[in-house]
């Protein structure tokens, strides 16, 4: 994939400064907004300027389902992942871990391990990706309380945190209420791409970047960075010209696995059917700030199907594009 990080260059530069100034980072956006790409680029950029930093990247998406059964299970899996990241002998580590956790609560043992690791390496950045998998589980509600307190106990510039998750501004504000960690963090909101950013992406692939092409891509997949990248990479690989190809793409084949992912996310949103049906006849819906269905609209926006725009009391939700419209009922808007 081409390096498209000029799209978020300002955010990236600010994030580097803020982590250096000891703020935790919180990268958030809808599914497909480019969080993982941003984190990759951030790690590369920060490492280049701070080569002594040791990174421990833990992706909750890679945890098995039973890892989320209890707080202890998450902490144990997290600590073992960090141990693996920093090159511990896992057999010996497992023995030490058993001894450490006989009397102390497991989180206290985690603090001791992280503290030892920091003492060994000087500076550790813990990157927790797909953190929404933890945040939304009631049985794990104390995880970020633990993490905040542990990071606070270890010297602030020795253990630092980068957290990424599927979320939106409302959820992030509420999380800031429940947790000083989220409240104090530097927020990196990744939003749907605008026309200028889509134009820049097309140009980076040396494709036609006229307003007409931008409009056609937007009609197809909206401003979803991930879907636009999938599309452009497919065209790159097929050596097709974007102007011709957009007329006869087999959209179903290109996006089938991604749409299945979204379909399963949408299925978990209570009341999604009712709200999505309203988009069968139109692409935009305005709702009042106090509309009781707002939470359903917001949850659908997190899946990437809808985009939320507007401020205060004037909120407009737009369906991202015809590809996403295929999720509504039995309508089939795919091209053949």
């Amino acid at each position, binding site marked *: 994939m081409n390096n498209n990080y000029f799209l978020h260059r300002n955010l990236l530069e600010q994030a580097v400064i803020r982590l250096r100034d000891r703020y935790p980072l919180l990268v958030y956006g809808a599914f497909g907004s480019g969080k993982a790409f941003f984190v990759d680029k951030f790690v590369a950029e920060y490492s280049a300027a701070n080569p002594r930093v040791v990174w421990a990247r833990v992706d909750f998406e890679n945890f098995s389902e039973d890892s989320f059964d209890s707080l202890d299970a998450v902490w144990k899996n997290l600590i073992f992942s960090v141990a693996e990241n920093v090159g511990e002998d896992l057999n010996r580590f497992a023995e030490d871990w058993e001894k450490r956790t006989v009397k102390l609560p497991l989180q206290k043992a985690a603090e001791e391990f992280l503290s030892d690791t920091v003492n060994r390496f000087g500076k550790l950045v813990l990157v927790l990706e797909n953190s929404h998998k933890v945040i939304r589980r009631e049985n794990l509600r104390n995880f970020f309380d633990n993490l905040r307190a542990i990071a606070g106990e270890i010297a602030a510039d020795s253990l630092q945190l980068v957290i990424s998750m599927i979320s939106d501004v*409302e959820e992030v504000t509420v999380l800031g209420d429940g947790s000083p960690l989220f409240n104090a963090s530097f927020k990196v909101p990744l939003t749907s791409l605008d026309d200028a950013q889509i134009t820049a992406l097309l140009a980076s692939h040396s494709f036609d970047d006229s307003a007409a092409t931008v409009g056609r891509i937007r009609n197809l997949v909206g401003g979803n960075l991930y879907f636009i990248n999938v599309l452009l990479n497919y065209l790159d690989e097929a050596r097709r010209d974007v102007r011709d190809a957009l007329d006869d793409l087999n959209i179903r084949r290109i996006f089938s696995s991604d749409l299945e992912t979204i379909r399963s996310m949408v299925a978990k949103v209570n009341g999604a059917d009712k709200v999505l049906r309203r988009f069968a006849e139109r692409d935009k819906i305005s709702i009042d700030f106090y509309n009781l269905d707002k939470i359903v609209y917001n949850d659908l926006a997190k899946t990437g199907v809808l985009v939320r725009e507007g401020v205060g009391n004037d909120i407009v939700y737009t369906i991202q594009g015809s590809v996403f419209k295929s999720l509504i009922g039995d309508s089939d808007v795919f091209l053949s």
Partner: protein
Amino acid sequence: MLEAENFQIGGAVRANSLYIERRADDLIIEFVAGATPVGELDRSANGIICIAEPHQSGKTSLYYRAFDKLQAADAKYIYFDVGKIISPDLSEIQWYYALAHQISEDLNLGADKIDMLWDKHNESPATFWSEFVKNFADEKQRIVILIDEFNLTESLEFGFDALFASVAAVGNASLVLLGVFSYYLTGKKSPGFSALQKTVVPLRDFTPKQMRGFAPVLAQFINTDTERTVREIYRWTNGHPYMSQRVCEKIKASFAVNQPPSVDEIVEDLFFREGIYSDVALASTNERFNTFFADSDRREAVLVIYENLLKADGGARAKNDLPENFSTDSVLEDLRVTGLISIDEKSNVRCRNEIYRRIFDDRWIDFKRNAAAQNE
């Protein structure tokens, strides 16, 4: 002492940021020294006090400052953050062992000491703890244990009777327990918790006189009449510490541009653009309200009280003039800890400030009523 150069939004106020002292700063020190004036705090509390305030009220900054002053006064200060160990499965012995571990580290008692007492837990967690306290407490040395985020213990099955009893058992009031809450706990049967939550150090919003402390710091960045600017800020925030700091920080950041926005424009931008979600303090109030007043009867009674406050001449009502239903001290305290109202020294109750008044308005009240009806 460093001259303040910055404002600070959230978190403990740093050394070079503006910190405005309130009565609560002195009260904590006086309480620890056993010199609290009669009437200001319950002297019968016997070594147990608490701070219970909504988010963004300055709790962390307050106890950080208290920490510095107590160190200077030769008191030992132990900071125990419940967040470090909290888990739905936390057992009573794990709680006491972790607390003992923290004290042991902070007082340099050596790890052997708790390990020697470990067998006592077979009798009971309380026995382990009381034996440990006997080993570290010293009548000649005043020790303050600050338990932060105490409200996180809400879901735990066990009470904290052994902890409270140990404070009472140590002679000469040389052991002080300071609990910090961002909301009150309900359903705790422990009498110690009741005592803890009764002896509240009131952390009120800034008075107009205290607000003047912002003016000299603002004067470093802007060249207009800073006293007047501070009065304009106060008109909106009514001395809310975090909101006042936030507005000042924005004024500082905006002043470099050609036509800096007015205080009204800044407030509009900071607190109204995304409605309730414009600001964490506002979002917090909404969330807390939902949690504390989930019961529909209780919610309706509180909404009647709040509606009455919104209509009050001059913005405030005496506590005794509020509608009778549920206007008990505990309900008003719960409402205060959501951040929605403030209660002054003379027991006058008012909507927290003009920002809250505009966000939590008649439409919000209707929304809460409709949401409650829909859930029934």
